[in-house]
């Protein structure tokens, strides 16, 4: 059994799964129920001068049958008195001394920062997280992502925090910036030992078309909110990997956040450099209970991969991130359709036809029919194969791939509803590994003499 416990800036946590600062960490009762369910840590709902929230405040985006692929909110920081929050934090830390308790903070003036940090530490916080990410409401007051998007201000406030704090400080970043490395470097300059990201992405969830008001609707108006949930995971992974590769930022501990719903998502964040992960939307959707699968799934995964701790997984995929110019131009894949599992829906056919390179064909067509359907190049070789798909209803046809024309773009595999039915097979091009940067280095990057010369050279190289 792999060891799931982690060390984050010297703070031990029973496992890497923390609740993100959000409604699931509003109260001590919730956090204690979460710890009972198996969560290793919690970042308390951001503390500051309590505010008033509006209704409604959440918007959801569905895709197909999937509810809440994305969530958006215009909620602000805690709306409960600070004394109550601190009292409950103290209680939580007393009952769960080994779990990680993080106080998320957002205030305005230096004095306020000094005071709230002091009180958070007195309440037992193991770590402090500076919320420089809230993209709505608080920015108008000069806080939240207004700070996160302004490296100078971020640096100054983070420096105060480091100065006042006895426990490690995490800077929580906003994705709403042009270059994530700017706030990242600012945090490094301020001397913080850790980062977390992402907070929510600026968004408008939709429009109530009857009332002509954007969503979520507050009476007769709305405002931009913060987007999170499964839909933002790719954005979060990208920003995380940028920081993880950065020589200075990459040395900080990073808590990964954004669209994590299960053990697999968590493993991906950790492989790209996170030490702990934080979860909000998935808990708002399904409850604290999802952590059971996360713990078990991650542990079994580590065992299976022969890793004995989470630390061994951390950052494993980082070196495999390269700039485009370093990718191997000689590497080639072609699609292959398995006639035994194909259900004959022909989604791959239409996707390749209209969205890619017209190299998927239907069996049983004459040349004439193929041309009428829009194929400009016809396969030299039509494979012998069952016309009717084994897993399909009679009459449904299994498409086939014209391997010579296939550019290996992946689209067909992505649209096929049957996992594993279309595989991308490696084919040898006979050419040695060569990247765009190699070509530049060898002076082969462009061909002088205009388009015709380029075309001629390409023909020769083929």
């Amino acid at each position, binding site marked *: 059994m792999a060891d799931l416990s982690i060390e984050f800036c010297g703070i031990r946590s029973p496992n890497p799964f923390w609740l993100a600062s959000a409604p699931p960490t509003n109260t001590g009762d919730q956090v204690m129920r979460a710890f009972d369910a198996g969560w290793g840590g919690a970042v308390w709902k951001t503390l500051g001068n309590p505010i008033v929230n509006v209704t409604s405040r959440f918007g959801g985006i569905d895709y197909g*049958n999937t509810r809440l692929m994305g969530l958006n909110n215009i909620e602000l920081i805690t709306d409960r008195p600070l004394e109550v929050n601190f009292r409950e934090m103290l209680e939580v830390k007393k009952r769960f001394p080994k779990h990680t308790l993080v106080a998320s903070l957002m205030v305005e003036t230096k004095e306020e920062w000094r005071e709230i940090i002091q009180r958070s530490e007195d309440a037992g916080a193991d770590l402090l997280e500076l919320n420089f990410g809230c993209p709505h409401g608080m920015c108008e007051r000069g806080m939240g992502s207004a700070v996160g998007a302004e490296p100078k201000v971020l640096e100054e406030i983070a420096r105060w925090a480091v100065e006042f704090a006895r426990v490690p400080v995490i800077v929580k970043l906003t994705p709403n910036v042009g270059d994530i490395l700017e706030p990242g470097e600012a945090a490094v300059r301020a001397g913080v030992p850790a980062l977390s990201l992402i907070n929510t992405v600026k968004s408008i969830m939709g429009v109530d078309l009857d009332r002509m008001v954007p969503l979520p609707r507050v009476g007769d108006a709305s405002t931009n909110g913060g987007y999170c949930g499964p839909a933002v995971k790719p954005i979060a992974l990208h920003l995380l990997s940028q920081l993880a590769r950065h020589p200075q930022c990459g040395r900080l501990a990073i808590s990964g956040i954004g669209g994590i719903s*299960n*053990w*697999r998502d968590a493993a991906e964040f950790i492989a790209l450099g996170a030490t702990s992960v934080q979860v909000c939307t998935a808990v708002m959707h*399904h*409850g604290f*209970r*999802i952590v*059971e*699968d996360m713990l*078990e*799934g991650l542990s*079994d995964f580590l065992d299976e991969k022969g890793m004995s701790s989470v630390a061994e997984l951390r950052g494993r995929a980082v070196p495999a991130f390269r700039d485009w110019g370093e990718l191997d131009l000689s590497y080639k894949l072609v699609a292959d359709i398995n006639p035994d*599992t194909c259900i004959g829906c022909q989604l791959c056919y239409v996707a390749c036809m209209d969205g890619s390179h017209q190299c998927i064909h239907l069996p049983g067509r004459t040349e004439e029919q193929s041309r009428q359907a829009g194929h400009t190049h016809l396969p030299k070789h039509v494979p012998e194969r069952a016309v009717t798909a084994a897993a399909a209803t009679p009459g449904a046809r299994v498409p086939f791939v014209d391997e010579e024309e296939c550019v290996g773009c992946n689209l067909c595999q992505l649209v096929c*509803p*049957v*996992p*594993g*039915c279309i595989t991308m097979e490696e084919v040898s091009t006979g050419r040695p590994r060569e990247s765009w940067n190699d070509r530049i280095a060898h002076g082969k990057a462009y061909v002088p003499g205009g388009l015709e010369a380029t075309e001629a050279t390409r023909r020769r190289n083929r």
Partner: protein
Amino acid sequence: MREGDAKRWELPPGRAEEAFEDKKPLYTPAEALAEANRCLYCSGAPCIQACPTGIDVPTFIRKIGTGNLKGAARTILSANLLGQSCAQVCPVEVLCAGSCVYTGWGREPIAIGRLQRYAVETTLSSHPALFQAKQPTGKRIALVGSGPASIAAAGLLALEGHTCLLYERKALPGGLNTLGIAPYKLKGPEALQELEWVLSLGRIEVRTGIEVVETASGPGQVSATGLLATHDAVFLGLGLGADARLGIPGEQGEGVHGATHLIERLKTDPGLTLEGVRRALVIGGGNTALDIAHELALLGVEVAMVYRRSEQEMGGYVHELDAARLDGVRLLENRQPVEILREDGRVVAMRLAFLAEGKPLPGAGETLPTDLVAVAIGQDRATHVARAFAGVALDERGRVKVDPLTHRTGNPKVWSGGDCVNGGKEVVNAVAEAKLAVRDIQRYLAGE
């Protein structure tokens, strides 16, 4: 039986059951994923409430969805050690799937049984070591019978570190899981494979060909008092007894079979041939009657069921009747067997009386030609052996009396569960009752 023998019990080739196809075959990974992602992951889900063993259905299905297959199997098997056979034999249509919120919504319920089969079967074939037994306690427990009730109890007790000895009078272990379940749901070798997995959990020994009796009079017999004297606790998983008989003229002799006995032969006896059997009549309206009728129909026999009351009053499940009808079984309602007619000893026809509201209509009846009669009107109750354990009592219907919360009998060292207690329910009930008994045995052995 030696430790480490991969296959201790084998069924001979050439059995009729081999010809049956699975009605609900193992999902492919793609099918399982698509179905799992349809589940709503309900909280406090009705499907959990409907499972007698309380499997956390939404959790295991979500785990299939996230690729945590081993975890899914763990969730299932920690609630129901026989999760594999239950996945195949449970009447999910009236249990979990029957109560799925989709059913109430007028949509196809989640195929919980098939997802369960996928999770357990796939996991056990690659990662059988899911559980670790506790340190040996030195306690010995005797289990009478080796059907689902005893197997589940033995597995759970072995995980607690106790040594378990199962005494089975038949040559093959597994009870009705091996010998009675319709072969289009579960075949004998599959039942034995699951049993082998349970045995792998700890110190469990199966002694086949040994009957527990009141007073032992030779090899192959063990006395009740002997068992009590040599074990720290005893679990009775006796099941039911022999098939009941009609008690009408012509019943004696070739061509008239007790239903469970005939099913057992379909599943185990390569010598059984149905040559010359074109038509069969099955007497009864319960699930056993439906099973044998359906099985005979799938073997190409023209089958009619003879039931004394109306279709609405039948004990068998509606979904099983529908499925049997699809394969050609006919139902004759409000009829009662009067006499079996023979020519040269061979069954040729059966005389039936017509009934109205359960009472014979004088003078009304018919004679139907048939080559075979299968009698499925119930089974005898558990046997005298229960009474041989001092203090164990039977109720007026012949069922072993237990405290419903602990499944302890009148003898403080004896517990019981399964068909011999509930009068004949499902495999999953036998497992659920075994769980209750084990919890109490555990308390008893811990000296509480």
